């Protein structure tokens, strides 16, 4: 059996890759996909802890994270569509209506 901290290492690396994606990409859809990647890295730690501590709470938490991630993806993509309609661009730098 693979020890627990191997799983934690893999999910830390995937989470850091997701953070890089959010920080350096200039495309709103790719930024949203990087957020999904980070959520999945966290889900992996939940499942690994649930397995190694022998409790089902981790799997239930992953269930709720999935529900919230689905809602987040739907709302985020709807905001991207309505923003694209006004600006014809997916660049987050051009979303500056509220900038003072």
């Amino acid at each position, binding site marked *: 059996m693979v*020890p627990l901290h191997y799983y934690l290492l893999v999910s830390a690396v995937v989470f850091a890759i997701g953070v890089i994606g959010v920080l350096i990409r200039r495309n709103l859809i790719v930024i949203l996909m990087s957020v999904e*990647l980070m959520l999945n890295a966290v889900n992996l730690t939940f499942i690994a802890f649930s397995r190694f501590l022998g409790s089902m709470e981790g799997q239930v938490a992953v269930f709720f994270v999935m529900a919230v991630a689905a809602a987040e993806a739907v709302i985020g993509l709807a905001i991207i*569509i309505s923003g694209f*309609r006004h600006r014809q661009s997916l660049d987050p730098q051009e979303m500056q209506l509220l900038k003072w």
Partner: protein
Amino acid sequence: MNASTWIFYILSTLLIITSLMVVFLRNVVHCAMALVAALFIIAVFFVTLQAPMVGVFQVLIYAGAIMVLFLFVIMLLNPTTRERGGGVWWNFGTVLALLLGGLLVPLLSNSESARDPLVSTELFGSPEMLAKSLFNDFVLPFEIASVLLLVAIVGAVVLAKRER
């Protein structure tokens, strides 16, 4: 090294490669395809960690529903303009994220974690146990999640509707 360790190494290498592809590929559709691959690999991880039900949810909800939604939006918007280069912020973001990874990795590799899992009964991770836990201890969060999904549906329709 036994077979499960080999499977773990192969899967984690593939997962890291596909995650890098999600972030660094230029074409948005290629990014989405790489993300589908990464989500499938995470589903395999779930199954090897005795969470088959959650693995099924992962394939159905993430790789199925959410990624189809992403691909539909990519198809509708058809983003053809090329991304501008980042400049200073590109380097700053990379350094910040590498710092985060560099802090997390030694912290986690030094930890004396449980080498062997505590229990591994036949029933652990089965739909039965998941449902028992979900509908006994977590009924209220479950109902709140259903309300949240309803709000998300209404909100998406209102936001994406064409103004007249």
